[in-house]
């Protein structure tokens, strides 16, 4: 990052080059600049993704043949727990908001920074502290936790593995998430540029806004639930201990009251990214701006009321089961509203099949498979059959990885020139996408089939008749890995050596494209004034949409 010799012109006055203040490493880890914090998140999150992917590959390798292949049962338990904890708490929940929300949100609303820059830094420090605690939990105490990322009581209270520390790590990470959400809400309320009314906000901002509310209102429930697990383990309060009248089911309720809304923390920002990318590359205003904005809020709201669908088989009254089932179907409506609006946006657009757009197409396709398999499980009769099978594993990888994960990659490709001030070559990215897409479906589609046939989840072993499916899935995991590597190498090289990017390489209309790439420390030389809606290609025309430069 910090070049010692005189930096090339585009970097010289950008946030990437230490023009004053602290230089070197301290200039990064103690920065309060939202753009630098975003990069801190980017690198730390990607680092953990690499670990998580490695663990996933190990699990797939174990499953390549029946019986013990490389690890035994208890190691496998530790593997899926770690994989789950890393992917959920360290990757996909902070994911898009922490990286792109931090970088792009202030730019898109024409602000100089977020409302509480120091709090922003604190939330990154919480993230790192939580991550360190999680890693420590692996090597201390009674060995790596083996409860699954859900920490279900009473097992989580009885196991001798190091659950206490792992749970505390998740607690600290929750803090980081709450602080980010709080910061974004205040930022969006208070720091919009002159003329930027609520319905002139870019849709990415709307999605961050609804996400932030979920972060704020759901995470504390997780916090208290995890605290209780810790108190149970340390002081034995007995609140989830059936031997003393406690009810483990209440743990599940509390856990999912958070963790279901958390699913929308993962997906809503990705949907916001899609709503940014589509109009830019269709050269057309977004179809149904308000419908998309409000559907984000609707998802945030309904998302609170469906937690019971994780518990259809754990023992609930029939009345609550069908109510939760009905509500689950209702959440599909706002999601579908978005998909239809996106499709309509493409209609009669002049489409530029750029890498970000193709990733968005992959997102929509994979997310639809994930969403539709979700609906299947929302139906009580099917749910009883597929509960806790590989079908569920396939489903949530389609949603979280195919949805949120591909959304994150699309966001990276879309804002890459803004963040690093450089362009990347298209061809290797197209190839990476092809490989990724093929690998992804090879990896996860067999899981849907296997689960349907009765393969339980969280098993290190299986019956011989499932061998073919598992073999295909494992091969898919290698293909996927190749795709990820191609993408990573391409982008890493481009970040260092790519040609300089102009301020608005894609012809985007939102404010972040009106400043230099990479942006200067203060974002805009003059506070931008907003005079119309975003994505207004009709009124602006290509000429007016072109960047002002600096």
């Amino acid at each position, binding site marked *: 990052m910090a070049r010692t010799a005189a930096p090339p012109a585009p970097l010289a*006055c950008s946030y990437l080059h*230490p*023009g*004053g*203040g*602290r230089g070197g490493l301290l200039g990064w880890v*103690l*920065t*309060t*600049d939202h753009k*630098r914090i975003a990069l801190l998140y980017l690198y730390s999150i990607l680092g953990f993704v690499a670990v998580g992917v490695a663990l996933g590959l190990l699990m797939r390798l174990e499953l390549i043949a029946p019986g013990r292949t490389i690890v035994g049962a208890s190691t496998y338990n530790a593997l899926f727990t770690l994989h789950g904890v890393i992917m959920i708490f360290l990757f996909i929940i902070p994911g898009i908001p922490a990286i792109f929300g931090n970088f792009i949100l202030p730019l898109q609303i024409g*602000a*100089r*920074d977020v*409302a*509480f*820059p*120091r*709090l922003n830094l*604190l939330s990154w420090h919480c993230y790192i502290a939580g991550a360190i605690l999680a890693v420590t939990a692996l090597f201390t105490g009674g060995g790596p936790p083996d409860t699954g990322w859900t920490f279900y009581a009473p097992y989580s209270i009885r196991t001798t593995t190091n659950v206490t520390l792992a749970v505390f790590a998740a607690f600290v990470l929750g803090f980081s998430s*709450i602080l980010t959400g*709080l*910061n974004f*809400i*205040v930022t969006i*309320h*208070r*720091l919009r540029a002159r003329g930027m009314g609520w319905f002139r906000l870019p849709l990415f901002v709307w999605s961050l806004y609804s996400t932030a509310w979920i972060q*704020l*209102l759901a*995470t*504390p*429930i997780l*916090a*208290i*639930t995890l*605290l*209780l697990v810790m*108190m149970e383990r340390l*002081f*034995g*309060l*007995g*609140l989830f201990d059936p031997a*003393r*009248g*406690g*009810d483990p089911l*209440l743990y599940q309720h*509390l856990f999912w*009251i958070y963790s279901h809304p958390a699913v929308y923390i993962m997906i809503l920002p990705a949907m916001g990214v899609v709503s940014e990318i589509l109009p830019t590359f269709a050269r057309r205003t977004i179809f149904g701006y308000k419908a998309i904005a409000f559907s984000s809020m609707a998802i945030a709201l309904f998302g609170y009321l469906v937690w019971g669908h994780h518990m259809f088989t754990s023992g609930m009254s029939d009345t609550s089961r069908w109510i939760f089932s009905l509500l689950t179907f209702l959440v599909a409506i706002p999601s579908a509203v978005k998909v239809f609006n996106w499709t309509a946006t493409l209609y009669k657009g002049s489409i530029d099949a750029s890498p970000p757009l193709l990733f968005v197409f992959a997102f929509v396709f994979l997310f639809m498979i994930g969403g539709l398999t979700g609906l299947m499980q929302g139906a009580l009769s099917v749910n009883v059959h597929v509960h806790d099978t590989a079908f569920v594993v396939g489903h949530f990888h389609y949603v979280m990885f195919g949805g949120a994960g591909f959304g994150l990659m699309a966001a990276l490709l879309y804002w890459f020139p803004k963040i690093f001030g450089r362009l990347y070559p298209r061809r290797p990215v197209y190839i990476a996408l092809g490989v990724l897409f093929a690998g992804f479906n090879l990896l996860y589609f067999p899981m849907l089939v296997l689960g349907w046939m009765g393969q339980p989840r969280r098993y290190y072993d299986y019956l011989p008749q499932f061998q073919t499916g598992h073999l295909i899935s494992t091969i898919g995991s290698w293909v996927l890995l190749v795709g990820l590597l191609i993408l990573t190498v391409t982008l890493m090289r481009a970040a260092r050596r790519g040609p300089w990017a102009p301020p608005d390489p894609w012809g985007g209309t939102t404010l972040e494209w009106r400043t230099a790439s990479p942006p*200067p*420390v*203060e974002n*805009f*030389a*003059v*506070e931008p004034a907003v005079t119309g809606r975003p994505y207004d290609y009709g009124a602006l025309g290509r000429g007016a949409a072109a960047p002002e430069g600096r």
Partner: protein
Amino acid sequence: MSRGMGSTLAAPAQTAHHRDAVGAKLGMWLFLFTELLLFGGLFLLYAVYRTRFPSDFHFAATTLDPLVGTVNTLILLTSSLTMVLAVAALERGRRRAAQAFLAATMALGALFLANKASEWAAKIGHGLFPRSGLLLDRTDGENLFYGLYYGMTGLHALHVLVGLGILAVIWGLLARGPRRGGEAAAERGTERLGSEAAAERGTERLGSEAAAERGIQLENAGLYWHLVDVVWIYLFPLFYLIS
């Protein structure tokens, strides 16, 4: 210290945004929401278990002394009063008075904790604590009552403790006087008070601005203190008055 870096490059066109009293307060209120939800989870557990074991709960509550609870309620309510008086005093520019009221608030908070600690100590002395032989022989409902009692009042006490820490920091800032206090805040960053909108600015130019910041910080700390108070107002009847 991004401001420092920015200053060499361009006029700080938007620094005005970063002295945003409304924003700081909004942030504090949002934080209080999260606190309510945190306790909300425990209240939910309480509600479920109490409906499930009503008579056990009533019986177990007879072991708690309503007098101790009442005294603690009075202590906390009074401390909220002194907190309000501190805020009002600072608003009228009477820094010394504000400090005195703040000290009173802290003293009352400490008294509350002392009272709580002696209550806990007595209970534990009688063998009433989770997994104690005495409790294990009792009914499930009584075990749960005590589990909740320790869990909820413990978490509340922890909040009082944190509150005391926050008030102490503010008291220290007030003691340094407005001008230097502003810089200290900017340097050390008292984020937890929700005041970083003000503290975040690298330099402090005017004493009066610093005083305004102190006001925001004190007010936000007050909001937190009242929240802790409100939570107790619910805990008190739920544990002490149901026998």
